[in-house]
């Protein structure tokens, strides 16, 4: 029997993150092993352009649902539609990229279909015609392999854990429009706040992160109008993060932070890398003034190359690092920014 693999293409404001195409690529691999086809599901308003992209990245078929009521992501109408399409198509698996939204959606659809959901898978294989998914548990200290005895196996795939396929403009596929009838949703989106400009952590190929150490520059004197001790500390940290941002800018990198830095109020939570923040897997991760607590390592240990800059030679971060500098980040980071600027011709 030809199996169908469904992929939910997560998109926001008409833009699909690379992880959506990574999921299409992973579905392509599964389809090859199972002898089946890949169907991409795209929901939104004005998202037709994504359908062609999905085909170029490997989908055989696209189910496109466009409606004004689908413009903003809301879990209930999206889950209703996804569950309906999965019931009609009876795929063996439903893949999605891991994001806050898709975790929610995956959980809901799994309830509707009374099936199992494996969040944040990092590897997929086929054994005896069934899908076996590997995912980290206990903050990445352990891995588990999961199988699901009901169909479809709902899976979200960790960003950058699967290769992004090459787009092939000559690939052919069909686009079918899906009829949409949406009941009054229980919630409405009444506003939107853009994140501060910069590279998104989840998709970033390079990340420069700062930890508690960014506030420890003794050579800085806060301006006299700041006399509260905590505010002085935050002011120092902001000067430290300015150095990190400059390095990030040269590398086209996103700015990350440890939980300690976020808890201390140095930088907003949206920058937090770790078990309770974002889980990232860039090609290059530069950790500045981060000791490497287990909760931070959980969020970045799968990065391809890790560079650690820390005063303390015993810091656990060096155990996962490929390159280490034992030194003062306030001297090393600006010097590195300058050295890279020269070499990269910026």
């Amino acid at each position, binding site marked *: 029997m030809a199996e169908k693999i469904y992929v939910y293409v997560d998109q926001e404001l008409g833009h699909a993150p690379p992880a959506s195409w990574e999921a299409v690529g992973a579905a392509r691999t599964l389809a090859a092993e199972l002898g089946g086809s890949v169907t991409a599901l795209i929901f939104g308003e004005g998202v037709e352009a994504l359908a062609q992209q999905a085909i170029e990245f490997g989908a055989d078929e696209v189910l496109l649902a466009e409606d004004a009521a689908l413009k903003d992501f809301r*879990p209930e109408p999206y889950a209703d539609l996804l569950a309906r399409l999965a019931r009609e198509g009876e795929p063996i698996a439903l893949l999605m990229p891991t994001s806050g939204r898709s975790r929610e959606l995956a959980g809901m659809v799994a*309830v509707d279909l009374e099936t199992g959901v494996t969040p*944040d898978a990092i590897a997929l294989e086929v054994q005896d015609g069934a899908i076996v998914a590997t995912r980290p548990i*206990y903050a990445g200290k352990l891995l588990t*392999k999961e199988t699901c005895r009901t169909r479809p196996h709902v899976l979200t795939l960790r960003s950058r854990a699967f290769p992004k396929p090459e787009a092939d403009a000559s690939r052919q596929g069909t686009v079918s429009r899906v009829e949409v009838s949406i009941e009054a949703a229980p919630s409405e989106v*009444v506003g939107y706040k853009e994140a501060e400009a910069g590279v998104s952590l989840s998709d970033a190929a390079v990340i420069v992160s700062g930890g508690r150490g960014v506030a420890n520059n003794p050579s800085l004197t806060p301006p006299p109008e700041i006399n509260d001790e905590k505010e002085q500390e935050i002011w120092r940290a902001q000067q430290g993060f300015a150095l990190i941002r400059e390095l990030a800018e040269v590398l086209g990198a996103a700015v990350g932070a440890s939980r300690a830095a976020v808890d201390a109020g140095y930088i907003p939570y949206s920058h937090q890398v770790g078990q309770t923040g974002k889980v990232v897997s860039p090609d290059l991760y530069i950790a500045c003034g981060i000791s490497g607590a287990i909760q931070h390592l959980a969020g970045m240990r799968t990065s391809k*190359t890790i560079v650690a800059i820390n005063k303390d030679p015993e810091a656990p971060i060096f155990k996962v690092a490929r390159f*280490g500098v034992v030194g003062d980040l306030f001297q090393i980071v600006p010097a590195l920014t300058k*050295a890279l600027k020269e070499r990269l011709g910026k």
Partner: protein
Amino acid sequence: MTALSVGPEEAREALKQALAMGCDEAILVSDPAFESADSLVVSQTLAKAIAKLGEVDIVFFGRQAVDSDTGVTYAQVARRLGWPSLALVAAIQELDPAAGSIVVERMLDSGRQVVRSRLPAVVSVVKEINEPRYPSFMGIRKASRAEIPVWSAADIEMAEVPQPVLAWPEVFAPPKVERECEFIEGDTPEEIAAKLADRLIEEKVI
């Protein structure tokens, strides 16, 4: 405010902490039948327990469990109850139980959605929502004396606990990456930075 947990006897400690921090009552849902529960079973259990509690306006959840890291339970409970799911909430802007409405800011990768929803609703929160308070002395005394009722599967009308659909036959430690850290040294920060930049380029990292 009721603190609710599904788990073994040890979960009692977490519930005591919740009482010490100011919850009015706590309930432990515990049954040997839940031992191998997956998220489908846990969400059903929680939904039944919440239904048994009666009039509930909001159910708050954390983002994800620290052991299984699943992060889908809140959404599944919302779905089972038929209540709106408000995920990854960083702030509550308005709350009007009498009018049955709530306005929250939910975190997305690219920013925040401001969402108005009807009540009752299920809300999962991220750490920005607030600073947890410390248990008060009175709270700790109250918690140490509190009786925490235990509801079994039968108590919440789950005569038959479904078998989990997910199996995890293998749990293993990640392969040890033998990664020897190459320490870059030099006499000045400029020299160290230059060496590091050169190594990153040599190794085609950048």
